[in-house]
């Protein structure tokens, strides 16, 4: 069963505007951020929380650009942190920068390959905004499978490089001759050369830095003063793989595999 959005039309725009801002913390419940939750049974539903997004569609803000009002907390935190300076981290909000990065990664008209929301989703890590604006983990999981398959196929399709070819020549201690077949000869290359020899997370991270994903990826490092130890490498990997996954779901596997071959493997290997 699909959940249909319960969007009903508003009575007047002024009512909507009045409800745009967060209600003042007048009650305990709202101070605790529980204004959204109704704890008891009610007979008449109240349509109170229609925020700015329920205005006419032309004025609707894109989802990537704001945190839903009712998901926000009371506005302060009682958590005592070690270093308050670590809470400060700014992410990109400029769509043109995102488009530029996509053009650099995917080539001409790369920014038109994905719809706006998906473009932003693919570069949003789970650590951004407590995950309230969505994140790219699932896309990255799928993108990784695509990358693994395409890398393996590229190993099978291309001849082995020199050093790997030497490693491939091993002698059997019982002097047996293996069964020869051209198809199996390709598969046997996997002994000497594996996807990890072709591609690694450091190489993908370097590619991501080169195209500018480091600036536009939306995430929250644990230690803004030390991005390496905060894990910028896996975060950038997630972004790249999520873009691949999104392209596959948007355009099909043919386009996605071509993107992996031409835009990632060619630049990385």
């Amino acid at each position: 069963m699909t959940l249909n959005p319960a969007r009903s039309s508003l009575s007047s725009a002024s009512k909507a505007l009045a409800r745009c801002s967060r209600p003042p913390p007048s009650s305990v419940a709202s101070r605790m951020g529980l204004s959204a939750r109704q704890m008891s049974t009610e007979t008449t539903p109240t349509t109170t929380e229609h925020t700015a997004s329920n205005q006419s569609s032309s004025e609707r803000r894109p989802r990537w650009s704001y945190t839903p009002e009712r998901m926000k907390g009371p506005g302060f935190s009682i958590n005592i942190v070690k270093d308050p300076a670590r809470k400060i981290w700014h992410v990109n909000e400029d769509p043109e920068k995102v488009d530029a990065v996509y053009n650099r990664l995917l080539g001409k008209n790369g920014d038109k390959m994905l719809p706006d929301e998906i473009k932003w989703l693919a570069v949003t890590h789970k650590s951004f905004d407590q995950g309230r604006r969505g994140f790219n983990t699932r896309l990255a999981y799928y993108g990784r499978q695509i990358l693994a398959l395409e890398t393996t196929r590229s190993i099978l399709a291309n001849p082995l490089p020199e050093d790997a070819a030497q490693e491939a020549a091993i002698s059997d201690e019982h002097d047996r001759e293996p069964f020869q077949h051209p198809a199996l000869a390709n598969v046997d290359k996997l002994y000497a050369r594996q996807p990890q020899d072709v591609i690694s997370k450091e190489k993908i991270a370097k590619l991501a830095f080169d195209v500018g994903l480091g600036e536009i990826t939306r995430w929250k490092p644990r230690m803004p003063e030390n991005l390496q130890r905060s894990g910028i490498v896996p975060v950038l990997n997630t972004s790249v793989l999520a873009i691949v996954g999104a392209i596959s779901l948007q355009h099909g596997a043919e386009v996605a595999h071509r993107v992996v071959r031409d835009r990632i493997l060619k630049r990385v290997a």
Partner: protein
Amino acid sequence: MMKRLRIERAAGQLLVARPCGPSTPGAALRSSYKCTTSQVPVRHSSSSSAAEAEHTPLYEEDGTDHARFPPLEKLPPNTSALPSPLPSRALESAKLSALHARLSLSPKIPLQTLARTLVDASADPNPYFNNSSLAFLGATIINYHASEWFMVHYPRLPMEVLEAAMTGLAGPTPLDRIAKAWGIEPAAAPGGEVDPGLLQFSLDQPGETVRGFGYTRTVVDKINKNNWQRSVAARVIYEDNLPALPSTTKAKQTTPAVAEQEEQQQEEQQQDDSEVDYAETSPAAPKFSPTSYGSSTTRELSEKAHANFVRAVVGAVFAHCGREAAKSFVKAHVLSRQLDLERLFAFKHPTLELAMLCAREEFDPPVARLLSETGRLSRTPVFVVGVYSGNEKLGEGAGATLEQARLKAAMHALKAWYLYSPGEGVKVPSDVLGQEEEEAAAAGGKKKGGWEPVYIDIGELISR
């Protein structure tokens, strides 16, 4: 005629009481064979054997004891010294031909390749004789098709549920079951003299296999020692793929012990997902029953070996018949299996999650309403509670207490959200593989040849 004579000759010897030896016949052969010289032993005469109180194992040229195991075919000399049967023997094995026919494999796949898929890395360390490369290739293909199937058919699945579902559909356990359904029998111990149609793996050494497509974290020892939590987001990049690929034992990667620990922890985490969610479903059944054969280690090794065989067959189909044939094979055998996704969910605070979901999607806040009840003051009350957003019912649940019913209703609402599926007939991305891009663009979205973009969800609610 020769065989009958041999059996008659052997009968007398078999009736005689034998001394206790090593437990498995393979071990007996191995330990004894190492002691004897490689010269051809002299055959004893048959008449004197019946009177002998003990039977000393008799090793013919091929290294097997013809008295205990009358041979079905003439084997070359020193066959049992080999770790796996020679490829030429594949053409003479009835079991192998039957397996080939049973799986309806294309004639393009030679019997020798099928024989190679049955040799695990633990049986034969030579990578050109074992199935490790084929298994790696097959695992990549299976994981790809399984993951794209989930992305299209269940776009809103939470990440942990997706990992558990992938393990349940394409992991070692279902592949092991597929192999057993195909009628694969394991050899008691690997060796050159076994029938090539038997699955050969060793319970003693794990064997060196192709590395998985994953990375070892430098802190992996600390993770295992301190039971650090590995985040879902980090697992996507780091872990040796979920479901587990053929385990890694090469120098740079983790040691087998750590790899197995990691896999065990992964399995535990996935079993956590399938646990009771607020006492709604029965607890997950144990993996192996207490009366299963062997020990947990041997069962794990057996499961891995069977799973690697299935992967190797997929790899062989890909190598010999191409991408489309491999895809149909995976669809027919792996993706056609039934998996109850609903039971993989485990919620911690379902009402909180549902409220946050409604907040995020900007629905009306959820309200629980008692729809009907019976027997409130009796021993077995039933309350039916529905959760509403505005005038629309999101979910309904029945329980013995009001609280229980409300939680069930919230859980059902969340499952209805997360288990959204566009239907069975939706195309997966690889359906358009092989088409020219211009042809796809010309065909357009609505027409048959084109690709329509599928729904991409922004992600699940993060609940603590």
